[in-house]
């Protein structure tokens, strides 16, 4: 059962990275990066369940707190502010 979850998450990472590679404008690539961080957050929690270590969940907590800051900075730069 765990194989299906890992296969789906790896396919999701491949599709998001492909859009980041060939998106026409800068906004498309930032959207792909945002999705990549969110998919990684869920995937790290799932891998922590596979390895059966409680302490590994902290990495995903850091991702959930800090992952939106970089995207927010790039969005403010595109808007013209900062």
């Amino acid at each position: 059962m765990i194989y299906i979850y890992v296969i789906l998450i790896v396919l999701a990472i491949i599709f998001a990275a492909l859009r980041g590679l060939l998106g026409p404008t800068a906004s498309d690539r930032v959207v792909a990066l945002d999705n990549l961080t969110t998919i990684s957050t869920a995937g790290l929690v799932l891998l922590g369940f596979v390895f059966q270590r409680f302490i590994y969940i902290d990495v995903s907590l850091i991702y959930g707190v800090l992952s939106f800051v970089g995207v927010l900075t790039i969005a403010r730069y595109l808007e013209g502010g900062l």
Partner: protein
Amino acid sequence: MILNIVGNILVTVGTVFLFLGALGIFRMPDVYSRLQAGTKATTLGALSTVIGVGFLQPEWIWKTLLIAIFIAISNPISSHALARGSYKTGLKPYMKKEGLDSYAEVEKEEVK
């Protein structure tokens, strides 16, 4: 036993939504459709996966709930800022008929 079944159903729904969100971001025609497909489906998928792992392993439920709260706060903020920034750079939405841009009229009234 019942926690195991509920957790497996939640993780299945979450990973399927993560895959569908990534497929939507690959297939959609312009930036705003990609934001719509990517952010909403991915937020639901991540929330469902994290809470499902909390159901599968019941000692971890408080930390996974904390991660879910952070995702639910931070993901709409970044998507809103991104949509606003890409509108300000001049990207037009993909539309079949002209004259449907309601945000331009609102912005014109705000300037006045």
